[in-house]
């Protein structure tokens, strides 16, 4: 059992507050992705869990042990670094065996485990090489194999794919998912790539400004962003936002249309809709097309609604040209509402 509990963890670097009192619970065998733009504190949080960084406040529990006072070696973790951190003076075999030798395992056990980890990552034929003789992708495989060979309770990954080229990243992503699901370890994975996060995670923790804004399943984070930030950060293109004015009894006026929305006291809230939840149909928003980008599978249209930029992902067989007037109808069950002051989602849609 290796669930991870983070209680009120905060970290300051001098006057700069990198993390504001983080609370997070990660279940045993869960694949948790920490997602955020650079500087949001996701790597700091990972390094605190690893023991490479000391929290200013708070507690870190792995399983039923409090670990925040323990050095990295006593935490039952393994880590994969962004720059691979493959030891250049050791062969691939010795790299993978490094942690096992530190545990003083018998040689036969070491050979077995190295062999198994190498097979899992398809690098059996590279065991005698040095890291200088490997490509970036191969080094990354060695780094993952080294972590897997430790058979740790928790694997921590710090942007492990960010230094690989796009095609290799895609391939490694699928492979990592398979391997880690098979290993049944709890995994925390840091990335700034939302596609990587969506495809790998059981749950995503979206971070911003040293806080966790939302921690939920990928679909939930995508469908029901807890805050405006999540909607504007996740999704390519991101959510559209339009101001909404109250016309009384839960009815809201948005760019010339009226929707049934939440029954809140405020007079102005924000209407949000994902670009792919729009269809060209009569009775929708009056939009003026500005840019048309055919993307093959569908066409991305950047239009203007009520003087605001508004994006729609449309069927690729719809013929639109810049300057055309469009009527964009949102799917009623996909409309979300946000409070412009707190930026949080407003629950209790009447939909």
């Amino acid at each position, binding site marked *: 059992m290796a669930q991870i509990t983070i209680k009120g963890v905060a970290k300051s670097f001098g006057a700069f507050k990198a993390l504001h009192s983080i609370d997070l619970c990660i279940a045993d065998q869960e694949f948790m992705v920490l997602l955020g733009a650079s500087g949001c504190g996701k790597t700091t949080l990972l390094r605190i869990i*690893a*023991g*490479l960084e000391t929290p200013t406040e708070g507690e870190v529990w792995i399983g039923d042990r409090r670990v925040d006072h323990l*050095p*990295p*070696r006593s935490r039952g*973790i*393994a*880590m994969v*670094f*962004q*720059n691979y*951190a493959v*030891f*250049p*003076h050791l062969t691939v075999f010795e790299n993978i065996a*490094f*942690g096992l030798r*530190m*545990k003083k395992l018998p040689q036969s056990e070491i050979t077995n485990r190295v062999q198994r980890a190498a097979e899992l990552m398809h690098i059996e034929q590279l065991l005698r090489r040095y890291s200088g003789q490997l490509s970036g992708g191969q080094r990354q495989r060695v780094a993952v194999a*080294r972590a897997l060979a*430790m058979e740790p309770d928790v694997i*921590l990954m710090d942007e492990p794919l960010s230094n690989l080229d796009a095609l290799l990243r895609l391939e490694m992503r699928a492979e990592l998912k398979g391997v880690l699901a098979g290993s049944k370890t709890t995994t925390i994975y840091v990335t700034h790539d939302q596609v990587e996060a969506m495809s790998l995670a059981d749950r995503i923790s979206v971070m911003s400004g040293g806080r966790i804004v939302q921690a939920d399943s990928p679909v939930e984070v995508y469908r029901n962003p807890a805050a405006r930030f999540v909607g504007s950060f996740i999704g390519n293109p991101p959510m559209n936002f339009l101001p909404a004015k109250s016309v009384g009894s839960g009815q809201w006026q948005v760019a010339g249309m009226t929707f049934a929305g939440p029954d809140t006291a405020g007079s102005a809230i924000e209407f949000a809709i994902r670009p792919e939840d729009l269809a060209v149909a009569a009775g929708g928003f009056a939009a003026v097309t500005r840019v048309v980008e055919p993307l093959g599978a569908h066409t991305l249209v950047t239009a203007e609604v009520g003087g605001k930029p508004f994006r729609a992902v449309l069927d690729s067989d719809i013929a639109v040209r810049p300057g055309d007037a469009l009527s964009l109808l949102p799917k009623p069950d996909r409309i979300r509402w946000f409070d412009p002051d707190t930026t949080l989602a407003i629950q209790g849609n009447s939909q």
Partner: protein
Amino acid sequence: MSTAVTDAPKIVSDVTRAGKLLYWSGVVLLCVWVLLPIYLLLINALSSPTEVQAFPKAAVPPFDLGSLRFFLGYAGVAQALLNSIIVAVLTMVLSILIGAPAGYALSRFNFRGKGAFRLLVLMTRAFPLPLLALPIAVVYIRIGLDDTRIGLALVHTTLALPFAVLITFSIFSGVPAELEEAAWTLGCNRLQAFWKVVLPLVLPGITASAIFAFTISWNEVFASAVLTVQNRTLTAFLLQTLNLSPLYLRYAGGAALVVPALMFIFAVRKYLFAMWGIANR
């Protein structure tokens, strides 16, 4: 019209040609400046005692070892040579033992006054040794360190230490902190991670830094001449006796000093460039 013509920009090839001429004459001048004395030194050291006085010199040294043999058999040379080696080795060991931890700290930790420390380390070289020699000599006589090899080695260590700190700093900085952190997560404590991961990677650089410290001590003459009487190093010994000795002996002595130093510096040149931040890896 005529002003317009004189004002016209020069043809680019003309400018580059002038620049090239300046560049190459600079290169030649510096090479002659450095290489000519070494050439004269070598050619005379490798000539027989009688040939040393002759002029013009042969382009290729006659490889007569008469002068060198005489020099090595000269009374006191063997002892001075041994002293030089002992003091240089002591300097080498001391400056690495003290300098490498400082270099490691500079490259791995952030602490208040780090920048000032790096500057101050170099500032120790700003005080001319003659200024310090007298107080040092007085203190040494009081505490009984005068005329000892270890006493001289201590002074040489202070001279070599700034370089040891800065060279090892750049060498440790060349080892990514992630490698050490990876070792920690794989079961090492700080000392084990250093021993198993950092040390193997920095060993060549540390060796180079040690050789450089050795060379500094080997070449140093002022402190050696002031602080030692009986236990003279080769430099101090030569300084003392050269005025009284025949020309061929001076050349042989000079060569015996310069050639090892040159070879050492040549061997570690890559790391000396690293010290000043010139990319080499």
